[in-house]
C-alpha cells in the first residue's frame, strides 16, 4: 500500500516529534509458526495441551518463545489433552485449546471433539497435516481428519497459506465461543510453518453465513407465556439445561422462577446453576433423576424448557412425555426447537436476554394446588437421602454415602469432574453443587475416561478452587496415563476412585434386565495405591466410613495431588431408574420393580434346540 507524497507530508506536519509512528508503516513479516503462536496469544489463550509430532515440530520450535502468554502442557495421550481442554473450557468459560500431530495424533482427538460437540463446549482443536503436495498420497502419518471430523464439529478449516492463519484463528475462536458454543477444528499443513506472511493483529473475518443468534422473538411472543400460565388447571415446570450455564443466566432464572412460583427441575449439566436449597428446587430430571422430579414431570402439563434440548435421557417414553403437555422452549439454536417435542411457544434467542425480557414483560403467578401435590412427593421421597439406597452388603462402602460425605466435607463448593457410570448419576444427585461451572461430566456422549483429564484441565483453569475427580475404576483406567502429567506439573487434583472391580452401570443393566448374565463387565485392577505412589502421588485405601472420612480429610491437607480408592459395593443399584421405552411416571424405585416385567424374550433351551 503506497502512500502518496501529500499524505506523507501531512502526517509529519501533524506529529513531527512522534518518530515511532513511521516504523509501524513497515510491514512486519513472520513465519507461519510465529504467526500462529501470536494469533493464539492475541485471542487470549493461556493454556494449551498438545503432543509434538513430525509435522508440527517447526511450531514446537517456536512455542516456548511465547511462554509468557501461553503455557503448554504435555499430556500422555491426545485424548487426555482434548478432555483437559474441554474441562478447562467448562470451568472458565474461555475457549479450550488442544493440539495433536497428523495421523494418529489427530484421530486420538476424535472422541474429545465428539464430546465437546455433544455438550456444546467452546473448544478449538488443532491438528498438523502433511506437506500440501503429499495430501492424498497416503503419506506417512497422513489421514483425512477434516473429513473425519465434519459431522462432529461446528466448523473446520484446512489452512494451506500462512497469510490465512491470523484470519482463520480469529474466525475459529469467534465461531467456537458465540451462539451455541462448539468445537472448531483447524488443520494446518506442514509447509506453512516456514512460509512468511504479514502479521495482522486484527484481521477482518469473512463469515457471511454465520450469525450467533440466528432467530429472534419479540416481546409480544414472550407475553404469550402469560396466557399459557393463566389457563385453568395448569401445572407448570421448568426444565433448566446447560444453556443457563453457558449464557450466565443464573440470577435471571431464579427471578423468573420466583416471579411465577414454578418448580425448577435441572438436567445433569445444569446442576449448580440453581440453588438446591431453594424452596422452588425440584431436583434432577431424567433416567436416573430424583423420584420427585420424575413424578412431577409426568404430572405436569406445561413444560418450559430453558436452554435444554429434551434429550432422550430426560424424556423417557416420548409418546407419554408429549401427551397432553404444552411445551415452551427458550433456546439459542433454532434447529433444536421442535426437534424432539412439538413446541407451542418457541422462543429463540439467548437465554439470559430472554429471561431478562420475560421478567419485565410478564405478570406474576402462583400455583398453590400444584405445590401441595409436589410437597407431598417431596415429603415421601425427598432429596439427598438414602430412602432408595438401602445398604445391601455392609462389607462394602456405599457410593452415594461416600459422595454425600465428600459433599459435606467440601461444603459443596468444589469443582467435581465425574467420569461415566453409576457414580456419575450419584454425583449429580448427592454432591450438592453450590456454584455454577463446577459440574464437569460427559453428558451427551457419555465417554468413559473423561473424569481424570477434565479435572486436570479444570484445576489449571481455576487454581484457587478445590478440584475433585470422582471416577469408577473402569473409567479411571481409560485415561490412567494422565497421572504422569499430574505428577509432572504437581497439579493438586484430588482423585476419588469408586473401586468395585466392575463396569458398574453395565453390571446393573445385566443384573436387572439380562437375568444377571455378567458378560464382560468384571475388571481386574492394579493396586491403585501402589500405582499412585509410583508416580509420587500419596494415596489411601478406605474400607470403612471412618477410614473414608479420615482419608478425605488427609487428602485435602496434602499440598499437591492425592488419590483415594474406596472399596464399594459392586451390586448397589442406582435408583430411581427409568428403563428404556418407559414413561417417567413408571420409574423403578427398587429391584423388584424391574425384575418382574422384563423377562428375557426366549428361553435358553429353545436356543439350543435351534428355535429363535
Amino acid at each position, binding site marked *: 500500500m503506497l502512500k502518496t507524497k501529500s499524505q506523507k507530508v501531512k502526517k509529519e506536519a501533524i506529529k513531527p516529534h512522534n518518530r515511532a509512528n513511521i516504523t509501524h508503516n513497515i510491514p512486519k513479516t513472520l513465519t507461519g509458526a510465529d504467526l500462529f503462536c501470536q494469533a493464539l496469544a492475541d485471542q487470549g489463550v493461556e493454556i494449551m495441551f498438545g503432543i509434538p509430532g513430525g509435522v508440527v515440530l517447526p511450531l514446537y520450535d517456536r512455542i516456548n518463545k511465547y511462554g509468557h502468554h501461553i503455557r503448554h502442557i504435555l499430556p500422555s495421550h491426545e485424548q487426555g489433552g482434548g478432555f483437559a481442554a474441554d474441562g478447562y473450557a467448562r470451568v472458565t468459560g474461555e475457549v479450550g485449546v488442544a493440539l495433536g500431530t497428523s495421523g494418529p495424533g489427530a484421530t486420538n482427538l476424535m472422541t474429545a471433539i465428539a464430546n465437546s460437540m455433544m455438550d456444546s463446549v467452546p473448544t478449538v482443536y488443532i491438528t498438523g497435516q502433511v506437506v500440501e503436495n503429499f495430501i492424498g498420497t497416503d503419506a506417512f502419518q497422513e489421514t483425512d481428519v*477434516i*473429513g473425519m471430523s*465434519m*459431522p462432529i464439529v*461446528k*466448523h473446520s478449516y*484446512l489452512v494451506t497459506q500462512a497469510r490465512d492463519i491470523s484470519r482463520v484463528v480469529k474466525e475459529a475462536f469467534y*465461531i467456537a465461543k458465540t451462539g451455541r458454543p462448539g468445537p472448531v477444528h483447524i488443520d494446518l499443513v506442514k509447509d506453512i510453518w516456514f512460509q512468511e506472511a504479514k502479521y495482522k493483529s486484527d484481521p477482518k473475518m469473512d*463469515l*457471511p*453465513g*454465520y450469525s450467533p443468534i*440466528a432467530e429472534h422473538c419479540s416481546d409480544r411472543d414472550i407475553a404469550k407465556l402469560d396466557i399459557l400460565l393463566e389457563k385453568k388447571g395448569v401445572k407448570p415446570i421448568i426444565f433448566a439445561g446447560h444453556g443457563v450455564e453457558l449464557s450466565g443466566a443464573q440470577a435471571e432464572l431464579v427471578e423468573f422462577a420466583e416471579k411465577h412460583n414454578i418448580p425448577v427441575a435441572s438436567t445433569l449439566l445444569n446442576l449448580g446453576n440453581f440453588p438446591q436449597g431453594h424452596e422452588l428446587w425440584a431436583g434432577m430430571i431424567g433416567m436416573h433423576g430424583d423420584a420427585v422430579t420424575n413424578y412431577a414431570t409426568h404430572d405436569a402439563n406445561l413444560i418450559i424448557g430453558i436452554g435444554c434440548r429434551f434429550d432422550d435421557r430426560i424424556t423417557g417414553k416420548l409418546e407419554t412425555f408429549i401427551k397432553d403437555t404444552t411445551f415452551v422452549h427458550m433456546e439459542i*439454536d*433454532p*434447529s433444536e426447537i*421442535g*426437534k424432539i417435542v412439538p413446541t407451542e411457544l418457541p422462543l429463540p434467542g439467548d437465554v439470559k436476554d430472554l429471561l431478562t425480557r420475560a421478567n419485565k414483560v410478564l405478570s406474576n403467578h402462583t400455583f398453590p394446588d400444584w405445590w401441595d401435590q409436589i410437597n407431598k412427593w417431596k415429603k415421601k421421597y425427598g432429596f439427598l437421602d438414602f430412602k432408595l439406597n438401602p445398604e445391601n452388603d455392609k462389607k462394602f462402602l456405599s457410593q452415594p454415602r461416600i459422595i454425600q460425605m465428600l459433599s459435606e466435607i467440601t461444603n459443596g463448593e468444589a469443582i467435581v469432574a465425574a467420569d461415566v457410570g453409576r457414580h456419575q448419576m450419584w454425583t449429580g444427585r448427592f454432591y450438592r453443587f453450590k456454584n455454577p461451572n463446577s459440574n464437569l461430566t460427559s453428558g451427551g456422549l457419555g465417554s468413559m475416561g473423561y473424569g481424570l483429564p477434565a479435572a486436570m484441565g479444570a484445576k489449571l483453569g481455576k487454581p484457587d478452587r478445590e478440584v475433585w475427580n470422582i471416577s469408577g475404576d473402569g473409567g479411571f483406567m481409560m485415561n490412567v496415563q494422565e497421572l504422569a502429567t499430574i505428577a509432572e506439573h504437581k497439579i493438586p487434583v484430588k482423585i476419588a476412585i469408586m473401586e468395585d472391580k466392575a463396569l458398574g452401570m453395565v453390571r446393573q443393566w445385566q443384573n436387572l434386565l439380562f437375568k444377571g448374565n455378567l458378560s464382560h463387565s468384571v475388571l481386574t485392577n492394579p493396586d491403585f495405591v501402589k500405582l499412585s505412589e509410583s508416580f509420587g502421588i500419596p494415596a489411601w485405601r478406605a474400607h470403612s466410613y471412618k477410614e473414608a472420612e479420615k482419608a478425605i480429610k488427609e487428602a485435602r491437607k496434602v499440598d499437591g495431588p492425592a488419590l483415594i480408592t474406596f472399596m464399594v459395593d459392586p451390586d448397589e443399584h442406582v435408583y430411581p431408574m427409568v428403563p428404556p421405552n418407559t414413561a417417567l411416571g413408571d420409574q423403578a424405585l427398587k429391584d423388584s420393580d424391574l425384575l418382574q416385567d422384563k423377562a428375557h424374550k426366549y428361553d435358553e433351551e429353545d436356543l439350543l434346540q435351534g428355535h429363535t
Partner: protein
Amino acid sequence: MTKKTYYKVTLRVRNEAGVLARITTRIRKFQVNIRSLDVAPIDEKEKFSDIHMVLETEKSDITTIMKKTESLIPVVEAFYEKQ
C-alpha cells in the same frame, strides 16, 4: 412399498472446496437420498454458489434436517418445498 416424498431444496452457499461435502454429510446422517443435484456459481465474482437438490425420503417432515443444514457455517440461506 412406503410412499416416497420429494422435496425441492435450494441452498445458497460459499463457493469453496469442501462445502458440498459438509452439506451432503449432514443430509446423509438422516438417511435421506439426494435424487438430483446441481451446483453452480451465481455471479461473476464466483463467491457464492446455488445448490439445487431434490431429496427423496419417506419422512413426512424435513424441517429439522433443513434447520440443521442451514445452521452450517458456509450455508447462507436455505429454501425448501414439498413436491
